[in-house]
C-alpha cells in the first residue's frame, strides 16, 4: 500500500498572461449573474429589438414579403441615420436597466466584505480591478448595442448594395462611438456609485435618481435662465446632444427643446470628459486596499 502525504507544495505550473487577468472578474461575475433566471430572461429580451430591426431591414428589400403583407415600401420606416439612432437609443435604454440591475453591487459587495485587500495583495493592480469590474458591464452592454448595431448596418449595406456602405459610413462610426460613450458613462457611474454607496437599494436608486434629478435640474435651469447650460447638466439631454452630433441630426427626439436650449456638441463632449474624470477621481479615493483613518 502506498500512502501519499499531502503536504504544502509550491506551484510550478504555467501562468496566464498578465494583460488578460482583468477578464477573470467578468468571467466569474457572469457565472453569478446568469444564475438568476430572471436576469437571463431579461438579457434574452434585449435581443428582441435587434431582431425586429433586422426584420424591418429585410422587409425593405423583399418585394414578395411586402406583397404578402400588403404593404408598400413607402409605409415602412426609412432606413437612414435616424433609424439607427433609434435602434441604439432603445438598446442603450435596455443597457441602462441592465446597469441598474447589476451595477450597484459590483464594488460595494467587495467593500462590504472587506474583499479589496484580497484582490490587491496579488499581482493585480487597482486599475485592473476597476477595469475588470467595468468590463462586466462593458461586455454585456456592447453585446446589445454596437455589436448588433454594426451587424444591422452590414446587413443593410449587403442588401442595399455597395454604394450605400460608402455613403453611410458615418452611421457605422456613430453607432460605434455613441455606444461606447454610453457604455463608458454607465459603467463608470455605476462602478463609482457602487464604490461609495454600500446599500444596494440606495445605489440603484442613486443611479436612477442621478438621471432623473440631473434631468429635472437641467430643464429647470434651461427654462429659468434661457440657456443651454442645463442641457449639459442633464445626463439624458447630454447623451442626446452627443448622439445628434454623431449622427449629424438635430433635436431628433422632439423634446420640445427651444432653440436656445440646444447645447453645442463640443460642450457636451467636454461635460462627458468632466464626468469621466470626476468618476475616476472618486474611484481612486475609494478603491484602496486599506482606508487610512487619521
Amino acid at each position, binding site marked *: 500500500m502506498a500512502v501519499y502525504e499531502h503536504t*504544502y507544495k509550491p506551484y510550478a505550473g504555467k501562468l*496566464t498572461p498578465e494583460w488578460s*487577468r482583468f477578464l477573470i472578474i467578468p468571467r466569474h461575475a457572469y*457565472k453569478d449573474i446568469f444564475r438568476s433566471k430572471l436576469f437571463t430572461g431579461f438579457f434574452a429580451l434585449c435581443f428582441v429589438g435587434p431582431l425586429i430591426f433586422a426584420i424591418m431591414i429585410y422587409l425593405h428589400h423583399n418585394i414578395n414579403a411586402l406583397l404578402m403583407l400588403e404593404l408598400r415600401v413607402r409605409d415602412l420606416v426609412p432606413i437612414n441615420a435616424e433609424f439607427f439612432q433609434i435602434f441604439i437609443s432603445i438598446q442603450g435604454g435596455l443597457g441602462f436597466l441592465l446597469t441598474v440591475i447589476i451595477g450597484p453591487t459590483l464594488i460595494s459587495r467587495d467593500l462590504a466584505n472587506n474583499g479589496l485587500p484580497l*484582490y*490587491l495583495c496579488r*499581482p493585480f493592480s487597482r486599475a485592473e480591478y476597476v477595469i475588470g469590474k467595468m468590463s462586466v458591464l462593458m461586455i454585456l452592454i456592447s453585446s446589445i448595442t454596437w455589436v448588433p448595431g454594426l451587424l444591422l448596418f452590414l446587413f443593410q449595406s449587403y442588401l442595399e448594395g455597395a454604394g450605400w456602405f460608402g455613403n453611410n459610413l458615418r452611421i457605422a462610426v456613430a453607432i460605434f462611438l455613441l455606444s461606447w460613450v454610453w457604455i463608458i458613462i454607465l459603467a463608470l457611474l455605476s462602478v463609482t456609485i457602487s464604490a461609495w454607496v454600500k446599500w444596494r437599494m440606495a445605489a440603484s436608486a442613486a443611479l436612477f435618481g442621478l438621471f432623473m434629478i440631473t434631468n429635472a435640474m437641467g430643464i429647470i435651469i434651461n427654462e429659468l435662465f434661457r440657456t443651454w447650460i442645463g442641457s449639459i447638466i442633464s445626463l439624458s439631454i447630454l447623451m442626446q446632444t452627443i448622439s445628434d452630433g454623431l449622427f449629424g441630426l438635430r433635436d431628433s427626439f422632439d423634446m420640445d427643446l427651444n432653440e436656445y436650449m440646444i447645447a453645442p456638441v463640443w460642450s457636451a463632449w467636454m461635460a462627458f470628459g468632466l464626468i469621466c474624470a470626476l468618476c475616476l477621481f472618486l474611484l481612486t479615493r475609494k478603491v484602496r486596499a486599506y482606508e487610512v483613518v487619521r
Partner: protein
Amino acid sequence: MDPVISLDGLGVKFGGRPILKDLRGELRGRAIGLLGPNGAGKTTLIHTLLGFHPASSGTARLFGRDIRTDAKSIRALVGYMPERDSFIADMTCVHFVRLMAELSGLPSDAALERAHEALFYVGLGEARYRKLGTYSLGMKQLAKFAQAIVHGPRLIFLDEPTNGLDPPARLRMLELVRQIRDSGHAHILISSHLLRDVEECCEEILIMKDGRIASYCNLEEERKANLKFLEIETRGDSDAFAEAVGTLGCEYALTGDHRIKVVMQDGIEIRDLYRLAASEGVQIRRLNYKRDSLEDIFLKAMEDSDGRL
C-alpha cells in the same frame, strides 16, 4: 541566499505622522513571529511589504526584490491572510479560493485543482461547497488561510491567524503553520497577540514598538541561554524537601504552597533533587526550567525600548 525580508531604513508616514521609523534588519527564519503592542505598526509593516502603503523613506526587499520597484512581482511570491473578516460575497468556498488563485495568475483548471488541494489541506471538508456567508468564524479563518496558500507562495503573511478561533480550531491552525514551516517550501510571518501561539510555531521573533524594532531574536537560542532556574511543585513534606535542597548548597525560595524555586549550582543535577525527593518521600509533581519564556522576552523588549511600562 537572499534574506527573506531585508529592511533598509524603511519608514512610512500617514498624513505626516510617522508610523514606521527607520526599520533595519534581515529576517531569515522559516517562521517569524511579529509581536508588539497595539499600534506598534505590525499591520502597517505587512501592508507596506505588500505595497499597500508607499514607503516614505528607505525601502525593503523581499527575496532581494525592492518593494518600491517590484511590487507586482513581489505580490506574485507572497500569500496574505488579513486580520479582518475578508471574503468575496455570495460565493462557495471553492469558487472563492479558485478565483483568488486565478488572480494570482493560475490558469482556470490549475486554479481549481489547487483550490481543492488547499482546502483539503486546511481541512475544510464538505463545507467547501457551501457559501462563505454561512461559515462560522473558524471556518472563515480556514478559508482565508486556504486562499493565502493556494498559489503556492514562498512567503506567507498571517495577520492574527488564531484570532477568534475556538480551542480545537486554534490547535489545528497552529499545526498547519508548523507543517508548512517544516515543509521548507515557504517562509511564514505571523503577527499575533497570543504569545503562546507564537511560541508554539515560530523560530524567530521580531518585536516592534512605536514603529521601531524593539528586539529581533532567535527563540531557541534565547531559551538555551538561561538554564539555571528550576521551578518545582511537590506533594508531601515540601518544607523538609526544601531544606534538604538547601543542604546541597543551592539557593531556593518557597514561592507558594508546595512550590519551590531553585537556583542550580554547577555540579548539581536534577537527579540529585530526585534522590532527595526519594529519601524524603516527596512527589515531584511538576518540574521545569524557568526559561526565558516568550513573555519574558517580550516584556524585556518593552522595557528596554523606553524604560517605562
